[in-house]
């Protein structure tokens, strides 16, 4: 039985204070699928994530999200100086579903511990969040999203700043979470990570292309339209890489 469509966007436009930041976004994502969101800085990746979260109302077109969205922000943006444990952070995910007068109780605590277990961090539950490694922090933030029973996971640059082994194990975790029936959207700069996803959506103010990685990532025209030509062929057949803006190649 094919899984249900969890996200459907048709001609979606979104932006701030009425000004359009992204337009022409058309895609649908089923449970079990992963989607890589590729685009330059300022190209509208975060705007699209915020629209999916429901923070920005569509300015045009239609958007349907049929499951709870759990967001996993960039770990560099989270407050490392807070006196909270990994478990405390995971437990924050239970708050939106509790009425305002309810404090998280034993049930919420257990759910948070389970979520930490799911991301492989049970042993570090009592560790202070700020003392964890970047990859571990990313996992804690994913656990916080899992606690919400999120059918859709939105990850903003989850691999940035991670070493190779951490990135790989995170990649495996994301694949597993998708296999359990979740739809996963990953905003990323990394073409290799994008290649591992089921779908790739290229965005630069407007949707440039959306499709399977084979189709989208092999099309140099698409990548150029997305990144404005800042793509270099890595010598020796290692593939292509995207130059971050303002980076001068030697």
């Amino acid at each position, binding site marked *: 039985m094919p899984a249900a469509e969890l996200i459907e966007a048709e001609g979606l436009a979104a932006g701030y204070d009425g000004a359009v930041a992204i337009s022409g976004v058309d895609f649908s994502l089923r449970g079990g699928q992963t989607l890589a969101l590729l685009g330059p800085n300022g190209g509208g990746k975060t705007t699209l994530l915020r629209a999916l979260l*429901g*923070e920005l109302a569509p300015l045009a077109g239609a958007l349907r999200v049929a499951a709870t969205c759990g967001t996993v*922000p960039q770990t560099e943006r989270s*407050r490392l100086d807070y*006196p909270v444990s990994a478990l405390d952070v995971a437990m*924050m995910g239970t708050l*939106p579903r509790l009425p*305002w007068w309810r404090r998280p109780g034993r049930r919420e605590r257990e759910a948070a511990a389970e979520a930490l277990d799911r991301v492989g961090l049970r042993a570090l539950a009592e560790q*202070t969040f700020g003392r964890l490694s970047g990859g571990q922090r990313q996992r804690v933030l994913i656990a916080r999203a899992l606690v919400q029973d999120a059918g859709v996971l939105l990850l903003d640059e989850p691999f940035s700043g991670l070493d190779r082994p951490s990135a790989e194990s995170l990649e495996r975790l994301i694949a597993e979470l998708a296999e359990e029936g979740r739809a996963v959207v990953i905003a990323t700069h990394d073409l290799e990570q994008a290649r591992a996803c089921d779908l790739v959506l290229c965005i630069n103010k407007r949707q440039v292309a959306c499709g399977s990685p084979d189709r989208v990532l092999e099309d140099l025209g698409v990548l150029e339209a997305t990144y404005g030509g800042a793509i270099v062929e890595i010598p020796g057949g290692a593939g292509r890489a995207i130059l971050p803006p303002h980076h001068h190649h030697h």
Partner: protein
Amino acid sequence: MLEPFHLPFVQRGLFEILILAVPAGLLGTWIVLRGLAFFSHAVGTAAFPGLVLADGLGFAAPLGAFGAAALFSAGSALLGRREEEATDSAVAIVLVGCLAAGTILASDVFGSGANVETLLFGSLLLIDGNDLVLAGVAAGLTLVVSLLLGQRWLAAGFDPAAAAPGAGGWLDLALFGLIALSIVAALSVVGALLVTALFVVPALTARLFAERMLSWQLASVALVALEGTVGLWLSVKTDAPPGATIAVVAGAVFALAAGGRALARSHRRAPALALAALVALGALLAGCGSSGSGGEGLRVVATTTQIGDFVREVGGNAVSVDQILQPNTDPHEYEPRPSDVAGAAEAKLVFANGDELDSWVDQIVSDSGSDAEIVDLGAIVPERRPGESSGAETSRYDPHWWHDPRNAEAAVTAIERRLAAADPSHRREFQRNARAYLAKLRALDAGIARCMSTVPASSRKLVTDHDAFGYFADRYGIEVVGAVIPSQTTQAQPSAKDLSALAQLIEREHVEAIFPESSLSPKVAEAIASQTGASADYTLYGDTLGPEGSSGATYLTMEAANANAMVRGFTGGRQGCRPLS
């Protein structure tokens, strides 16, 4: 060691600080986490327009303060949300608005009296039932709301984007509102300038060691209670104002803790070193024993410098005088010292100026548990001038009655009678002293009159900082042309229109000199003087005597110095006056 806590007013202060430890410690952690230190410092100051309104319209001061603080909080929260990261700038903008509104209300709308500002300066020694209730309400609300919302505040601060979107607004409002309420409750304890000593410094100190919210919050509450208790005890021992003492203790503990922690990272033995330093500091503080007033004989409190002078002259060695205001202190910045309250507790008699100048004395006497009789000298003296004619100044009479020596004579006579009634065994001595002093007062009066008669009446035109010399002018045929500050509170500012009208008046009336007062800044007077060509070289003693050794150290020399300054000013320096010789 613990004897300070046997005094009833110290016990009340202790209760108050222990109750306030709950909101201060709990909210302190949120203030530190959310970077609200500037906001919490500003909210106390922002209460000013509310205090002016409460005073002008006649409702309870804490209500006005809380209203203004709540508006300030809401404004900061709303503006801060729109500006995203620029919360500090938002707070600054709203704070400026509050202060400007307060100053305009005080100067131009209500012509507020000095008692408005005193509400911004609190004292742990003057706690009454209302203060305790307000602190209790703040503590209870903070406890309940923190229990309910603490996890949400934590999540919202940790990661505003991921915490329930859209919910941040009311969460912030609840937090800001609680901070406003608790700081208003703390105003009566440490005053607006030192609230951060309770709300920020202990939480910062505990933050150095706490790994989790719960332990941090408990440690902060405990630290506020501890520092408050030690500071209160220390202030009684050293006779320092308690608010400032608590602030110093809190700062010292933070410095030691931060230093100790830094050392601990480089040395193994550091904890022992830090402990040793703490013990040494404690020993040092314990060694600062109370000097005490230690005088013998009948104990008497005098509120102002000039009344203290009268009582010393009449009482001689048979009376020990506790004088509350010291030379050159602005009564607006007055915070009672423990010895003032302790002095009132043991005093038989309290001599007050009356006419709202020292209305706080009633509270000092009642809080000290004393049954001393308060003698309102202003109600006894024969020569009276009407008080401020406009505005909400509640005094019916101008309180500066001592500048007419005939009033001083009446006051001295009254003081002599009261002292004699309280201590009949020294009746003869009091009478003898009073007779001698009254003779000097009459000589002073005649001497000044003689000086003034040598100055043509058309030259005797007086412009001063504020209207303190009406009695003096009436007595010696001087015309008061104007005053630089139209209101009695130093928070009030003269408007440009006031100043230019005054400058025109000075030129039209050919005023030779403007007389700044010794206890106020001479800036405005000097500015007008330079604009009009009048001199501003001669200062007058208005509200207080000068310090020991100055020409205004006693009542007699002060009035003589004022007469001399005026004669010199009126005559362009050609003539002086020595009424005492």
